[in-house]
């Protein structure tokens, strides 16, 4: 095994203390799935090192091994040249590793200070710890542009600030090595820029940073070196300056990839969806949609941009029949009930609306169900899935699933496999296949490529454009500006439950949209 480890990977052959982290021959299997195969990686101290790869390529598994969540089946971890076993996260922290997760692990009703010392208190009494933390935090804020009010409650902070608290937590525990997992997913472009400034500051102070992301642009912008993973193996480590987005994408997928979406100009037809003064209140009575109006024509993609949590989810939920709303919505001239009878997912589907929800784990799929059971999800009343009045036709469903899996290139194409056993991209393909193949008049699609690998992104984008070209109306909600810009025929930015005017993707730019996303509108 040691022999195999050295073939073709010179940079890991000779360990020197110049490396903050070295992983040697790391392998990890979950049952029959080999998540990591003989991974070798060496991260020089004081650099920002990107790890990029398709979903299911094994990035998260590798980082979980490094942080002590999983135990590798074989291989060794060296920290600063020292062999360091990491059986649990406490050992990882002791070894100077800090992790900022994609989903923050903060106590919402604690202050920043309380969150920072949580688990790192000096003794049973909190006062001395809090005072010490206050001093340390003041220093860190000054040094790294990491300013956060230490006495603010987490629930009152913006997502960008919450992320800073996570970084402060790691630094307070004297992390020398910082791992960030998809850190920009929830940030505005401005906040992301700020984050990268913070990371560069940390690097200049000699900290080592590992950045896991699927965004090639961020890799190009922020990292010194980048390692590419594909299907559980490390396919190469390159200097960022000597690579290009295209070459990295090709390494990730193993073939040439179109980064731009190819699409003809839209030929909008009649109005399909008309929304007037739509208002939604959540279960606490807070108004989440404050009266928005727009329309979508046949053969047109309307993109809704915005930072997560500004009412986009509620818009999809209200149109998808999952949430009560008020106002007036018509689909091809017919009124859609917004509350009471007829305001449910079944009625919406029979009206001709398909819905790819933002969160496939929570809404779009039942993870414990098999793929074929998920293909029936929402369409379980469809006559073609019934054997007779009493029983469902499970065999027909399995056959239908097999066909969909072939058309949408779902891997592995096994209808009886549980949804949770598929990678994110393949899960999303199952949902998209189920909804698009219904041939709907209107497709609601939220975060179509969140947590989806590049190969699948390309595929899903093509399907969305193809549906538009068939003359269907599409409402696209995404926090990925690139996605909105490249797919939409018109762009509306959502901020604080309102639409900040329409923009034409040909004439607008990221900067203008970024300002609108932050609630600053020049004109409208």
């Amino acid at each position, binding site marked *: 095994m040691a022999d195999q480890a050295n073939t073709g990977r010179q940079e890991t052959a000779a360990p020197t203390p110049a490396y903050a982290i070295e992983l040697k021959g790391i392998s990890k299997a979950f*049952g029959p799935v080999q998540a990591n195969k003989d991974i070798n990686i060496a991260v020089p101290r004081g650099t920002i090192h990107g790890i990029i790869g398709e979903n299911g390529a094994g990035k998260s598994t590798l980082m979980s091994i490094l942080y002590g969540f999983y135990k590798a089946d074989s291989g060794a971890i060296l920290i600063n040249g020292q062999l360091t076993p990491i059986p649990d996260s406490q050992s990882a922290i002791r070894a100077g590793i800090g992790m900022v997760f994609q989903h923050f692990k903060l106590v919402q009703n604690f202050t920043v200070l309380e969150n920072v010392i949580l688990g790192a208190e000096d003794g049973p009494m909190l006062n001395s710890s809090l005072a010490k933390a206050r001093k340390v935090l003041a220093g860190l804020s000054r040094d790294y542009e990491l300013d956060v009010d230490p006495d603010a409650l987490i629930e009152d902070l913006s997502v960008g600030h919450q992320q800073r608290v996570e970084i402060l937590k790691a630094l307070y525990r004297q992390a020398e090595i910082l791992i960030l997992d998809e850190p920009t997913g929830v940030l505005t472009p401005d906040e992301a820029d700020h984050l990268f400034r913070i990371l560069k500051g940390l690097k200049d102070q000699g900290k080592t940073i590992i950045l896991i992301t699927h965004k090639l642009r961020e890799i190009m912008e922020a990292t010194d070196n980048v390692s590419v993973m594909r299907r559980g193996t490390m396919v190469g480590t390159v200097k960022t300056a000597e690579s290009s987005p295209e070459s990295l994408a090709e390494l990730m997928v193993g073939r040439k990839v179109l980064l731009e979406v190819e699409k003809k100009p839209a030929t909008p037809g009649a109005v399909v969806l008309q929304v007037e003064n739509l208002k939604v209140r959540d279960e606490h009575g807070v108004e989440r949609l404050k009266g928005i109006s727009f329309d979508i024509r046949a053969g047109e993609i309307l993109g809704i941009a915005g930072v997560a949590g500004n009412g986009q989810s509620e818009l999809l939920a209200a149109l998808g029949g999952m949430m009560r709303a008020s106002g007036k919505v018509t689909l091809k001239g017919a009124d859609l009930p917004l509350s009471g009878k007829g305001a449910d997912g079944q009625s919406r589907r029979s009206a001709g609306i398909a819905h790819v929800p933002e969160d496939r784990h929570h809404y779009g799929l039942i993870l414990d169900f098999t793929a074929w059971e998920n293909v029936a999800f929402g369409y379980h009343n469809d006559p073609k899935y019934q054997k007779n009045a009493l029983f469902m036709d499970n065999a027909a469903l399995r056959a239908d699933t097999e066909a969909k899996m072939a058309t949408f290139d779902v891997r592995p194409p096994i209808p009886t496999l549980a949804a949770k056993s598929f990678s994110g991209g393949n899960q999303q393909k199952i949902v998209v296949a189920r909804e698009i193949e219904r041939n709907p008049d209107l497709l609601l699609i939220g975060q179509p490529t969140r947590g989806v690998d590049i190969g699948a992104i390309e595929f899903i984008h093509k399907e969305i454009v193809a549906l538009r070209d068939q003359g269907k109306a599409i409402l696209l909600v995404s926090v990925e500006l690139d996605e909105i810009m490249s797919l939409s025929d018109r762009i509306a930015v959502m901020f604080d439950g309102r639409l900040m005017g329409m923009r034409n993707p040909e004439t607008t730019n990221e900067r203008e949209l970024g300002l609108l996303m932050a609630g600053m509108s020049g004109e409208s």
Partner: protein
Amino acid sequence: MERLPKWADVALVPLISLLFAAVISALVILAIGKDPVEALNTMVTGALGSAYGWGYTLYYTTSFIFTGLAVTVAFHAGLFNIGGEGQAQLGGLGVALVCLAVPWPHWTVALLAASLGAAAFGAAWAAIPAYLQAKRGSHIVITTIMFNYIGAALIVYMLVDVLRPAGQMDPATANFPKETELPTLNHIPGLNLIFEKGVPANVTLFIALAAAVAVWALLWHTRLGYQIRAFGKSEPAARYAGINPFRIIMISMLISGALSGLMSINNVMGEAGRLVQNSSEGAGFIGIAVALMGRNHPIGVVLAAVLFGFLYQGGAELGLWTSIPIELRTVVQGLVILFTGALDQMVRMLLAWVFNFRAQPRAA
């Protein structure tokens, strides 16, 4: 956490849990100065060693299949129905009212009517907690527990003040007419060669087995079952799919309550021939353990019901033939429930560790 192979998860985990329970039970018997080998011997011979013993074991099994299935159906809808006991007793009231209402021409007709009565009363008793859960968000675990007590009190009232024949001392209904008596296994041609007279196991056993098949078909082959399972796995996802939560909570609890109620066919109509206080004798609660151990699958439920039937009958034999007190039966049952239900995860982790340990040399 590491995953176990399916066969280990389904077969090995319950077996090892049982082994643990048996070992601790043996220690308890040793501690009270008795002989565990003698105890085991008595239990096995008494419950499984003769057709007579089987006649009792299967009688208990029948009740446990019903209550185990009741818990299973609710569980798949994400609802923990602890009210099987109360629903079973109310089912008994339904049986009694039907059996005493009119003179029945034949046991088959009486059985059909009494089944409907049992199911309707059991379902009705589950409907109120279900409604409170669906409309008001009152937690079904709390309400079904409370309804067990309310049900018991209601039965006492009915027996003492309404259904007790004039001049009778004990709180019970009159004996059911002879025409409502269900054939025991001894009365069934073919089986009568095996089972002697006086065994309590009766035709209800076959209804229970049919119910197991029906529950299996319902859950995995019908639209309703599909919606029940989807709702049970994820309520937000069910809302996305347009599955009506109110409808699913109500229907699954009605089915669950009906299954609990149906158990009364076995004990009230098949065995006692009248309704007495506390007719279900804890079978509603045993159903929870049966469902847990049976992994909420009808096949598992039937197998687990046989096991608990054995424990019930074997435990009774202990009290009968040895100086070991009958209360030990409760101890053994408690340990089985503890290990198969509550400590299930512990055994699983232990096994995962063993499997890993075995797999390790292969990887290196």
